């Protein structure tokens, strides 16, 4: 009998919490999944009915399951724009327009408009996303050049059911090109934190007629605010130093015009102190093969010719990297290439004692490039 009573007791104990109902059950079909948020500055700052003036204009892309099910194509999303003093408030306002429980658990892309990025310290709007436990911190962060984030969200996706899908797919392909800068939300925030406000972000372009989306180039941040843009060539230059990504480059050699694809790039930044002043050596190792030859063919099995070609390629890479450094030092005066960080890792004491912003533009940099072929470059 003791056994029966104990089992009954256990059952009652188990059922006790259940009688009160399940607090957290939120059925998947009763939720509205936000997949993309566009952050913009408010064009008209006064919003009636609020104590504080509206600071942000948020555009949400929400999955619409009804359209997901039908196979006729076309976007399966709802686009809503909300203006509010804060992001938390904006989500609350959005809830009053959407009949399902809003969740940010599948937020994949955060778009930031040009104006907001220039005006606001980026850590302010980012804080909401860092604090929210639902948000996956590896979501993509992109900055829209010259337009509002809302303009991007209003573009019809070429493929797929939503624009966020397309943007995510684009960033995944980017691993193999060096035309664009990929910096997800969390690592962007980390860069801002470790460097004190300097970072490179990804850039999105909207074509003039607002129909076509281009992902290339990068956004330069200084003091946690947008300072300028790099176009795709400049990004390619910068990528020799910041990201070890495959790249396609071209060179001329006595009437031969060839294309070389660098499959493997390895960059070493070596800081030194020479006569009390910082000095950088940058070693780039490039490994790849010839994609095409135009103008005339050259015997690639000849070691002499190979030497000539590797020298040409090294020259092209060196020039490109030097361009990136001069752009960063002379034009922007912002160390977005991460040289300061490398210096800090090596000489923390010296770094503390100098004003990096002032020193940086005049630091001499020496670039060495070593090029090797992974394949012969012959046909097949």
């Amino acid at each position: 009998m003791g056994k029966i009573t104990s089992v009954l007791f256990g059952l009652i104990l188990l059922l006790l919490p259940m009688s009160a109902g399940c607090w957290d059950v939120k059925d998947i079909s009763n939720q509205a999944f936000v997949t993309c948020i566009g952050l913009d500055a408010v064009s008209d700052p006064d919003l009636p009915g609020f104590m504080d003036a509206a600071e942000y204009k948020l555009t949400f892309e929400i999955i619409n399951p009804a359209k997901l099910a039908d196979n006729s194509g076309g976007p399966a999303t709802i686009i809503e724009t909300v203006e509010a003093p804060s992001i938390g408030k904006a989500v609350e306002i959005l809830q009053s327009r959407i009949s399902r429980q809003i969740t940010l658990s599948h937020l994949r892309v955060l778009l930031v408009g040009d104006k907001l990025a220039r005006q606001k310290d980026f850590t302010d709007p980012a804080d909401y996303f860092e604090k929210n436990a639902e948000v996956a911190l590896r979501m993509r962060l992109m900055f829209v050049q010259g337009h509002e984030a809302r303009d991007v969200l209003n573009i019809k996706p070429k493929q797929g059911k939503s624009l966020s899908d397309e943007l995510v797919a684009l960033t995944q392909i980017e691993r193999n090109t060096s035309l664009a800068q990929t910096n997800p939300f969390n690592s962007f925030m980390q860069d801002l934190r470790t460097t004190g406000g300097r970072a490179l972000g990804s850039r999105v372009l909207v074509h003039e007629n607002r129909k076509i989306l281009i992902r290339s180039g990068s956004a330069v941040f200084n003091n946690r605010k947008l300072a300028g843009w790099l176009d795709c060539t400049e990004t390619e230059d910068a990528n020799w130093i910041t990201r070890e990504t495959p790249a396609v480059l071209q060179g001329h050699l006595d009437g031969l015009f060839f294309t070389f694809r660098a499959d493997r790039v390895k960059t070493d930044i070596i800081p030194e102190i020479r006569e009390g002043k910082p000095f950088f050596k940058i070693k780039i190792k490039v490994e790849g093969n010839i994609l095409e030859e135009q103008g005339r063919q050259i015997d690639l099995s000849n070691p002499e010719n190979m030497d000539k070609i590797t020298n040409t390629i090294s020259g092209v890479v060196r020039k490109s990297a030097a361009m990136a450094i001069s752009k960063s030092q002379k034009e922007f005066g912002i160390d977005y290439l991460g040289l300061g960080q490398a210096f800090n890792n090596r000489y923390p004491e010296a770094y503390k004692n100098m004003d990096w912003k002032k020193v940086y533009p005049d630091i001499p940099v020496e670039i060495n490039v070593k090029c090797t072929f992974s394949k012969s470059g012959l046909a097949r």
Partner: protein
Amino acid sequence: MSVSGNKSGDNLDPRVVTVGLILGIVEFELFTIAKGITPIARQDAWISVILGSVIISASAYLLIRLGARFPGETPFQYGEKIWGRPMAFFWGLMYLVYWSGFLALISQEASMANRVFFLKSTPPVIPILILAIAAAWLASYGLTSLIRFFQLNLAFLLLPMLLVFVMAVRNMDLHNFQPVLSNGLMPVIRGTVYFMGTLQGLEIILFLVPLLRSAEAAVKPALAGVYVITGLTLMQILTAVGIMGKENVQASIWPEIVAISLIELPGFPVERFELFLTLPWLIAVFTTICLYTYFLVSGIMGILGIKKRGAVSYFAAAVIVLGVYIFPNYPTAIQVRRYFSWASIFFLYVLPITTLTIAVLRKKRGGMNG
């Protein structure tokens, strides 16, 4: 009803010490240790951990020596012989306070993590009640069953963590560990002490040794256990600091989990790698809760001389549930946790080793000196 079968009773294989140590010590703190240790030792946290493992394995050896001097006796029994009755009673009470405090702390942390990740609006007491009843149930079966439960769960704890680490390796940046030893040796040593303090649960050796077939053979398994824990801690610190950098580790509450959530593997069908970690951390927290429930239960029975195991078990369960409400907020709990790490140094290392020294000096031994 049961037969005195071959594997039951006080005849455990010495190799169980490894499993006991791993699952007894590893708990949610494994996912927060980077946050605690990086402000002290900065990017050299990994050196602290390696240094700490040497000291911990030495003290694990000493704990086994202490247990081996008194074969077949529980710590409470030989404690009385060494310290004398009143002193042993006092230390026993201190241990009880320490264990209940720690039990309350981990239950609070488990509840907190549960509220953030799983059940946001469920009253926190109910999930903890479910865990507490299970823990009291298991603890009432004794250490043998507890160890068996650990053995059953070992693979579920280790495999996902290894898997996640392997996936994380690609995303690590070794530059985050530079410069090595930039601030001298002192921060590293302070970090070592901190790491030693986080290994609450080392006492399990004292409780296990009397049940073993041979105490001498337990040395190697104990060292293996310590090294596995060190390895896991190292993995966590490498992942957190390697992926995020030391500044960002300090900015997040659960750095390891955040670090894992940053991993991206294109082509792999899972997007959120935290899923792999939920199982290990639930197991780790639950096994530690079970172990401390057992300590508390056997402590109350051994020190206060109460014989009703069931009643004591439910008292321990009540401590777990109360733990959810004791602390006004999470920062307080973290603060208390820091103090507990320092207290642990005393309870885990200083007191047992002093006991051993006294036992050696006064030539106390089990059996003949009675």
